[in-house]
């Protein structure tokens, strides 16, 4: 009896793994196609019968991508003086990559810093108006940014932030999902530990810094990953807020490439490879943390 059940479950397992393997191939296919496609000749790409493996490897698509437009690698503006310095001219795609990394990293850091503090306060401080603030946060949490598209655009224009990377970063930081998440994590901080710290004479900041922060670290990790990937892929805000070639991000850059060269797939795929490879490398390196982050602090409702 027991043996029979064991067999049945083994059969199921083998069957399921087989199905998942097929699905995995399907999931890996787009990336595979992008990377191999970026090395194909245009004849091979446009062939009506798909060429599964490039017969001839060429760098032409990357050469084309890098020779298209140029932008300064970096620019520094000294506030209030009007003096500015620009880096050497590089292919625009490199600048886009840099912009995107900058945007995602800054958005991630700001979000984690502000959300950790706010989440801690919401969970552990009994201040007036807490319920109202928290209700607002819950209601706004799932709000798509398209809803406030026009007012946000006008606001950025009047703050003179339109067409700067900050116009993309600030709304991401403002999005209250992070605060919600950190509040849920902070609920788990034992009150006794905080009491003990207080008795030892620790101030508010020290209590937060030495007691709360280490406990919610996994949560911060989870939020960091979530924010990084979401802002990297936040095509919409980038589309609305950025116009100059040198201010574009890589997803936006590829979308533009696609529109300009409707079917120069090789060029588009070269751009797409450039966009996805760095983030995949980041993912592979930090994979452990990606998975560790969220599990440890189980999220409570």
């Amino acid at each position, binding site marked *: 009896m027991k043996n029979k059940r064991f067999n049945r*479950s083994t059969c199921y397992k083998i069957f*399921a*793994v087989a199905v*998942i393997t097929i699905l*995995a191939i399907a*999931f890996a*296919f*787009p*990336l595979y196609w*992008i990377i191999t496609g970026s090395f194909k000749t245009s004849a091979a790409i446009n062939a*009506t019968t798909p060429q599964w493996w490039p017969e001839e490897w060429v760098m032409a698509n990357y050469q084309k991508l890098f020779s298209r437009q140029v932008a300064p690698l970096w620019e520094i503006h000294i506030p209030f003086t009007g003096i500015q310095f620009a880096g050497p001219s590089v292919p625009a795609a490199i600048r886009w990559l840099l912009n995107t990394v900058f945007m995602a990293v800054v958005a991630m850091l700001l979000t984690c810093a*502000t*959300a950790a*503090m*706010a989440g*801690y*306060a919401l969970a552990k*401080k009994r*201040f007036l108006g807490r319920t109202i*603030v928290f*209700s607002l946060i*819950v*209601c*706004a949490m*799932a*709000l*798509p940014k*398209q*809803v*406030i598209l026009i*007012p946000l655009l006008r*606001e950025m224009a009047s703050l003179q932030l339109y067409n700067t990377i900050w116009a993309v970063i600030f709304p991401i*930081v*403002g999005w209250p*999902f992070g605060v919600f998440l950190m509040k849920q994590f902070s609920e788990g901080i034992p009150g006794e530990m905080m009491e003990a710290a207080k008795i030892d004479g620790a101030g*508010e900041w020290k209590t937060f810094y030495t007691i709360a922060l280490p406990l919610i670290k996994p949560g911060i990790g989870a939020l960091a990953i*979530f924010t990084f*990937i979401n802002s*990297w*892929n936040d*095509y*919409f805000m980038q*589309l609305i807020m950025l116009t100059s070639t040198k201010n574009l991000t890589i*997803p936006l850059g*590829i979308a533009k490439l696609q529109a300009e060269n409707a079917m120069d*797939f090789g060029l588009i*795929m070269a*751009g*797409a490879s450039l*966009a*996805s490879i760095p983030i*995949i490398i980041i*993912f592979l390196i930090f*994979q452990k943390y990606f*998975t560790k982050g*969220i*599990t440890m602090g*189980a*999220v409570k*409702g």
Partner: protein
Amino acid sequence: MAASKKNPMSKALVRRETIAGYAFMLPSLVFFLGFVIYPMVQCIITSFFDATMNREDIFIGFANYAELFQDTVFLGALRNTAVIVIVSVPVVCIFSLWVSSVIYDLKGAACSAFRCIFYLPVVTGSVAVTVVWKWMFNNYYGIFNYVGTSTGLLDKNINWLGDEKYALGCIILILLTTSVGQPIVLYVSALNNVDQSLVEAAEVDGATKIQCFWRIKWPQIMPTTLYILVITTINSFQCFALIQLLTSGGPNHSTDTIMYYIYYNAFKLYRYGYGNAMGVVLAIIIAVLSAVQFKLAKKD
């Protein structure tokens, strides 16, 4: 909460807590109020105006809202948005739970490899992925038609993205592939963290695998499920790039979502007030849904 009710806090303590609370909240509130609440208020105000490019806004009361509910495209977009969320959220959850339950106890690198592969579309980014999908769905030489007709599954080429019957389905399919990555990663870790002693005890008592799953594992991964529900709902509502890049809401508005239709009204028809009215309606719906979801989750 219970503790504070037993020993009512002194006024001084309340003040201290309030100051500290807001001090900790401040950086976050600056951004939240500045870039979410303020525009939202603006959005509500303009929704009562006939606003367009480079002209003084004209107050028209509830006319935008009145028009909304007679606009078949808007109602269609509302339906499409609902379809996307209602289909993708459960499918993502069930699919990722199933995949994770199969792969989480695989030996060696297999689990990690699967996890990575399912995460790939997420990190590749929807714009890059869209490029390939557009080609795969191509009416004339796309891979679906190529494989379909050469294996005899299809009689003739199907215009996947150009046909009202299929376009929304195609969008949802792509959305699914870019959404399941994170849930799978989360479920795999959650399942690995299930208290093994409980599982073993249940097995000794003669519980079947299925009973074991629902009675022991499921309650333990509940928090993960809730988190996944929330992020998947958020992601599904934000589905914009796929639509803008693949179908522009067409054919015949069959893939319009509210999010895209707002953009469409703003920058193709220059109807800012009308677009904002749509935004307000959507915001109310989402706020109510989030609040209900949160209340329900809290009860559990």
